[in-house]
């Protein structure tokens, strides 16, 4: 026998009480830990995804939507901007790099991004297999896309309009996979990269199809449109000024459109001047990822705070419950303690045993809570694709969890301290004589 076994047997002797106390505490701890895991990982994700992007320029609308759509690829575009205007911004003296994005289609829920080589290098994307896309309709896919959709090099697929699988399908043209990227643990893993020209081609043709289907009368306009497209490819060889963003395009072509530009400033001056110039001096909109994500967190923060408060209430209640359990059991155990004292247990040992009982309860509760939390996040990633896509993992552990363990141990000791003092003060002779 030893003190730990004694305390353990006392806990086992009251199974219901012990279980409810552990359960209460573990729920509180689990909520806090889930928030810790998810919050930390999301923040980290957001930071890595927005790395190297100082400003997003797109069509007017919600600045947050602009960020969510063009950096995290979880919202719809605000609209289109003309290539001509985009070029003007790309040539601005305060802009170091400007990456064009042309969005609109997806495959199996994974977004197809028309862009250039700089975009992949933003996330240090490297090829695992195959080659980068070069010709229109060639794509290079992210690691998660390859894993989840099963697409391999050489596979062909038709894209869907929008972001969800099962949208209107562009069946007339098929993309072909030429390369697969290594995992970067950023949003890049969930994307299908292609050239801006591919997206244009897909939409010109699909417009044509749409129009044929729904607006037979507008045939002429349509014809004109596709003719124009041909024109500009032919004109490539001419000495026209070329677009800086999409070198194959004619800078003067007013029909070509992009979804957004990702901009990196040349100097900190950019942060001061560029957003204001764009927002007031053009019909484009500039949004700062840092500012918008901070705003997003402050909005989400309300929900997080409510959950946190709920968790703390649970923990306080479980602390009270443990205190009451120890206090009551001590009343029943006065005689036990007196007997132990008569057998030679010192006051100190009795105090230690009661503190240990409180500490052991909360330690078990918090360990159960941590396991519960990681289990819940693992289940969430397994069953909710959005969580999996966001790159949240239940198998990541944080230093904060040690703090949770230590704090709950302290809670247990705190709950046990009054009962322990009472036990310390008990007059064994009186208890044994039945006078107290």
């Amino acid at each position, binding site marked *: *026998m030893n003190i730990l076994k*004694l305390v353990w047997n006392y806990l086992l002797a009251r199974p219901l009480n012990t279980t409810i106390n552990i359960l209460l505490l573990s729920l509180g701890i689990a909520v806090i830990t889930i928030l810790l895991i998810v919050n930390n990982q999301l923040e980290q994700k957001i930071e890595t995804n927005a790395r190297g992007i100082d400003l997003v320029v797109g069509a007017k609308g919600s600045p947050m939507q602009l960020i969510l759509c063009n950096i995290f690829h979880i919202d719809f575009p605000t609209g289109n901007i003309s290539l001509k205007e985009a070029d003007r911004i790309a040539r601005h003296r305060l802009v170091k790099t400007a990456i064009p994005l042309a969005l609109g289609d997806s495959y199996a829920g994974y977004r197809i991004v028309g862009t250039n080589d700089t975009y992949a290098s933003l996330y240090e994307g490297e090829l695992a297999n195959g080659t980068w896309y070069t010709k229109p309709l060639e794509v290079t896919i992210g690691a998660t896309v390859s894993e989840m959709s099963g697409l391999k090099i050489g596979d062909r697929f038709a894209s869907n309009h929008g972001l969800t699988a099962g949208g209107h399908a562009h069946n007339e043209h098929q993309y072909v996979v030429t390369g697969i990227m290594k995992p970067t643990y950023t949003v890049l893993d969930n994307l299908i990269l292609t050239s801006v020209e591919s997206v244009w081609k897909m939409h010109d043709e699909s417009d044509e199809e749409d129009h044929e289907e729904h607006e037979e009368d507008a045939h002429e306009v349509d014809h004109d449109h596709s003719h124009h497209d041909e024109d500009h490819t032919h004109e490539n060889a001419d000495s026209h000024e070329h677009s800086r963003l999409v070198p194959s395009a004619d800078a003067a072509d007013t029909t070509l459109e992009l979804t957004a530009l990702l901009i990196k400033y040349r100097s900190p001056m950019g942060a001061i001047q560029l957003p204001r110039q764009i927002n007031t001096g053009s019909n484009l909109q500039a949004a700062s990822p840092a500012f918008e994500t901070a705003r997003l967190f402050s909005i989400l923060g309300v929900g997080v705070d409510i959950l946190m408060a709920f968790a703390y209430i649970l923990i306080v209640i479980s602390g009270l419950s443990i205190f009451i359990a120890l206090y009551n059991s001590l009343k029943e155990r006065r*005689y*036990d303690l007196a007997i*132990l004292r008569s057998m*030679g*247990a010192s006051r100190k*040992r009795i105090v230690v045993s009661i503190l240990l009982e409180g500490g052991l309860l909360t330690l078990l509760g918090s360990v159960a809570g941590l396991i519960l939390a990681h289990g819940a996040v693992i289940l969430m990633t397994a069953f909710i694709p959005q969580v999996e896509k966001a790159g949240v993992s239940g198998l990541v552990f944080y230093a904060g969890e040690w703090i949770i363990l230590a704090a709950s141990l302290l809670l247990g000791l705190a709950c046990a301290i009054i009962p322990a003092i009472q036990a310390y003060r008990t007059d064994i*002779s009186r208890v*044994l004589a039945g006078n107290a």
Partner: protein
Amino acid sequence: MIRVSGLSFGYSSATSLTFPDFGVGKGEHILLLGESGSGKTTLLHILGGLLRKYSGSVMVDGTELSTLTETALDHFRAQRIGFVFQRNHLINALNVEKNLLMAPYLAGLPQRPERVSEVLESLGLAEKRRSRVTELSQGQAQRVAIARAVLNKPAILFADEPTSALDDRNCDRVIHTLMDAAEQNQSTLVVATHDQRLKDKIQNRIVLPAIQTNTSI
């Protein structure tokens, strides 16, 4: 083994108990007789080191108890003294064996399973080793309490009213069990009781006078 002289104990300044001088030899069995309230339990608790702050001299197994610190007294109790109480209080959360093993654990002695077997067998409890305490009959529980008291082979075994709640047959069994257990472990046995049935079992006795009440008013 025990030598008491000039002993008095005050719960408060108003009520104070004075005890006669006496001595008990090694291995002796002795009855501590007296009416309820005569201070039997108090004397037993002083002798067993559960009560301190008495005046006078109490030598137990060669040690003057008043010279020991509280911790030293705890240690002394653990190693040299066994108690059997009227309510044979066992720890319900532990089974029979674990209840017994608390004794050597608290005394800092090795926890030997064969010693547990030996004691349980001598008390006819061998098959109850793994039983829950709550499943025992009152008589069995009483014997487990005796087993626990003698497990460390204490120098002195104190029993406080061990038989007063029992019928004649059980009373007989318990006092014989106690005497046998004390004998087997070479312990001095001190039984505090007002139970008249024990008078012809143990010849040595100390009789405490009924408490002196102030009747002058």
